[in-house]
């Protein structure tokens, strides 16, 4: 890092003081300059008054995982000065508010310390506490613009877009930006050695968070019933879905709505609503996070055993228990895969970024209908809530939902007896009917023992027949879920296996290791159940690493159980402190091996 279009900086503020908008403005300006950029918001599980950070990474090559090194810290929260300054790389930079003398806690010998009196400038230029607090964020944005070379025209036009209809506000923001910019130019050596230069690398891309993208996927897949209970970091998924439905699904004349979104009383109810709606024939989903996954276990078993389509978005956060609700992890892999008591297995899709969150949301609804079972989409806080740079989302208008095997009244007329759970095709999926269909279509769904006719049974053979069919169905699922993404290099003997949001860091590690002369192949698993080729990839490498974000190596466990891959042939790289993965963690583990192999 540290150069033109290749650096990272981190802004430390206090939550509830309005810095989020300023951070967004920074990100977006860089993006508009055509330069690949990413931002990670590190916020506390509270509403006001506690430390919060925003990390921005710029990388011309498109390596947009979380940066391993901070080139510059912008320290605006006295409570975290010590921590913030400690994170700056050697020879890095610190920007602080020099309205007061340099605090002892910020002093460090091996860095360059830059001061701009943000507070004083605001006091001079604006009136009222509220305005001063708010605009201080814009002032530091202006200073940063000067320091790293953000195009002021880009900023101006973003401000115009945002505040176009509020002239007073627009003026204040323009003024604040300019004050910060001018002060930096006047007081400091601008720009810094690491700085921006316009590129053209973002024109086919967007900045979007995974929850918004997943909500769009649900919208486009034709989901009509959404049930949820608020929980960080999954809340914004249903909020976005709600907003999109209001935008696209309300009859202009009558005001009638083509959707039903139910804020349930808890996660059990949210799951129940989803399953009830799925049974009734709607594309239905719920979104939740860790504690919700625990609370939904009973219903997941019902839907599994009674073959009910339903989609569960799990925006994973740091567990166990309430854990760290505003920190990211991939800790629920086993809880999802084998959710509920009894013998159960559930398909899971693992998007790696918001673009895939969109795609996989759509796939999830198709799979749920095709497989008549709950489908998980396992995102995480980092994907779900942070803005990622991804390819523009597109839609193929020839898409029609794959509703799987559903018998209509006419279909029913042609058959002698409708047996809800009879596996006619040998793929483990039996045709269903929807409530409301007449004729022979009625059946009685239940979570208790039932035979292929959906009749109650306590008979061993009938019970086994049914659960054996479900096992067959799960094997069949492996042929329908997306295949892993494999990135090979000629001559590589090391394989890196990973999942979901670790993707960018692992790919960056692949590149960095290559620079060190270490060739590695990468396989990112996109779904559970695994295909045989997952096994082949691992077996075909002398050494394989499994990189994931949980303490217990849950993906690795699943690979052992489901594919029979020996534990020892997969070296775990586990990063579970709650931060998005950096390439450095992977590089150090691989390049440092065997000494660096964790237990």
């Amino acid at each position, binding site marked *: 890092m540290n150069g033109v279009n290749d650096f990272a900086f981190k802004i430390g503020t206090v939550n509830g003081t309005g810095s989020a908008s300023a951070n967004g403005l920074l990100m977006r300006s860089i*993006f508009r300059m055509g330069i690949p950029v990413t931002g990670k918001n590190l916020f506390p599980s509270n509403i006001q008054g506690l430390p919060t950070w925003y990390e921005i990474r710029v990388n011309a090559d498109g390596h947009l995982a979380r940066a391993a090194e901070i080139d510059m810290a912008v320290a605006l929260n006295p409570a975290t000065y010590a921590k913030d300054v400690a994170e700056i790389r050697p020879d890095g930079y610190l920007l602080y508010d020099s309205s007061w003398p340099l605090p002892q806690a910020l002093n460090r010998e091996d860095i360059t310390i830059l001061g701009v009196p943000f507070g004083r400038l605001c006091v001079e230029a604006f009136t009222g506490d509220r305005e001063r607090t708010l605009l201080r964020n814009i002032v530091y944005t202006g200073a940063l613009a000067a320091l790293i070379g953000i195009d002021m025209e880009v900023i101006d036009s973003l401000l115009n877009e945002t505040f176009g209809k509020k002239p007073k506000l627009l003026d204040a923001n323009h003024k604040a930006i300019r004050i910060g910019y001018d002060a930096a130019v006047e007081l400091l050596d601008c720009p810094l050695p690491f700085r921006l230069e316009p590129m053209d690398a973002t024109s086919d891309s967007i*900045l979007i968070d995974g929850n918004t993208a997943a909500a*769009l996927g649900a*919208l486009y*897949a*034709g*989901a*009509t*019933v959404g*049930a949820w209970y608020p929980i960080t970091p999954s809340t914004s998924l249903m909020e976005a879905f709600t907003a999109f439905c209001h935008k*696209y699904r309300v*009859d202009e004349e009558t005001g*009638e*709505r*083509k*959707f*039903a979104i*139910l804020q349930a*009383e*808890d996660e*059990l*109810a*949210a799951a*129940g*609503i*989803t*399953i*009830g*709606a*799925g*049974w*009734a*024939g*709607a594309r*239905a989903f719920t979104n939740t996070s860790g504690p919700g996954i625990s609370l939904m276990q*009973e*219903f997941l078993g019902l839907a599994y055993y009674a073959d009910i389509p339903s989609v569960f978005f799990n925006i994973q956060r740091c567990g166990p228990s309430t854990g760290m609700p505003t920190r990211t992890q991939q800790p629920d892999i086993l809880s999802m895969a084998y959710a509920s008591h009894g013998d159960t297995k559930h398909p899971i899709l693992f998007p790696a970024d918001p673009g895939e969150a969109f795609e996989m949301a759509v796939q999830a609804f198709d799979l749920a209908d095709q497989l008549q079972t709950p489908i998980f989409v396992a995102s995480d806080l980092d994907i779900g809530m942070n803005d990622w740079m991804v390819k*523009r989302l*597109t*839609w*193929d*208008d020839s*898409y*029609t*939902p794959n509703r799987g095997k559903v018998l209509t009244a006419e279909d029913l007329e042609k058959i002698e007896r409708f047996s809800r759970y009879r596996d006619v095709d040998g793929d483990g999926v039996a045709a269903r*009917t*929807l*409530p*409301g*269909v*007449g*004729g022979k*279509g*009625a*059946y*009685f*769904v*239940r*979570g208790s023992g039932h035979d292929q006719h959906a009749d*109650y049974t306590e008979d061993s053979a009938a019970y086994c027949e049914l659960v054996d069919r479900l096992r067959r169905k799960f094997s069949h699922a492996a042929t329908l879920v997306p295949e892993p993404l494999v990135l090979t290099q000629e001559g590589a003997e090391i394989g890196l296996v990973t999942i979901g949001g670790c993707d960018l860091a692992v790919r960056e590690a692949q590149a960095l290791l290559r620079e060190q002369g270490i060739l590695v192949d990468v396989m990112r698993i996109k779904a559970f159940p695994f295909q045989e080729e997952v096994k082949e990839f691992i077996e075909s490498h002398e050494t394989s690493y499994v990189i994931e974000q949980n303490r217990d190596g849950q993906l690795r466990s699943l690979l052992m159980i489901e594919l029979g891959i020996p534990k020892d042939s997969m070296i775990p790289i586990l990063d579970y402190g709650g931060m998005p993965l950096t390439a450095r963690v992977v590089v150090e583990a691989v390049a440092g091996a065997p000494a660096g192999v964790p237990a």
Partner: protein
Amino acid sequence: MTSIAKPVVAHPRLKTNALGLTLRDYEGGMSTLCAGCGHDSVTAAIVQATWELGIEPHRAAKMSGIGCSSKTTAYFLKQSHGFNSVHGRMPSVSSGAAAANRGLSVIGISGDGDSLSIGLGQLSHAIRRNVNMIYILENNGVYGLTKGQFSASADIGSKLKKGEVNEQPPIDPVLLALSVGATFVGRSFSGDKRQLVPIIKAAISHRGLALVDVISPCVTFNNHEGSTKSYKYTRDHDVEAVEADYIPVCEPIEITGLSNGSSNGNGHATNGHADGRPANGDGDLRVVQLHDGGTVRLRSTDPSYDPTDRANAYQHISGCQSRGEIATGLLFVDESSRSMHDVLKTTSTPLVDLGHEDLCPGSAALEKLMGRFC
């Protein structure tokens, strides 16, 4: 074999309803409940009510949780889809089904364990949400299917077969429902078809959640009010020690006669005579003998009773309660309240019937939307 198929025999002379269907068309599989169980009488009332209303069987959805009561959905409307879900969670599953397809007539059946213990939260919230459904609570004061533990509606002083006495106050689903905003609340007795059938009909016709609490004695485990007495049969025969697993075959309890019977279609008792009528709106008092020799005292509403005043309803019910009586009849109704679909402003076409073109904004809209993310 919770449900056994009944022989289908054509009965050419059976009466038909508006759809040309006979009562038989509204029946289900053979019951596997204990002989004499109150729940079977409720089943019969549902069959009667849905037949009289001329519900199209395939448009009904039968929803339940887990328990003897929850099994009863298998015993009526065999041509309807049924969903025997998990314990205490029928309300949410029903909410989802109702949301997805507003064309369905959602008939939920539950027990007092299912609804007032594990399911109290879901019941309350389905009421608050005013889900478009009828919710029949087959209330026997015990957990029948798990062999007779007290439920949350067990009366103080009632006694289990093993001798344990309940000392916790009961939760009255009707008072609970009123306090969380129910828009339709009725109560009746399983064996009182004349009162129960019209209440069920009114409830099915209600726009929103209609709660019908049905006192439905468990012949096997509930010693009910007769708590201080030992089981009548036991007393008579003195054979406890070999009867660990013996359950006598009983006749279902039926209330006949006119006194709190024939109704004005709202479930109001019509011909109450002055039999200790202590408060406004109180109609007949019927004392019903249970299998165990105990009794329940049922007080129906009289024609002067105003079921549209929530506070009044609350007072009537708690007034009865304080006299050891159970208020029955159509106790409260608020037809002006908005149902779940009203609040959600759901389109009149059931969501499940919308085509993908109705739902998907298409590529152009997406392309346009992308501008927001640059």
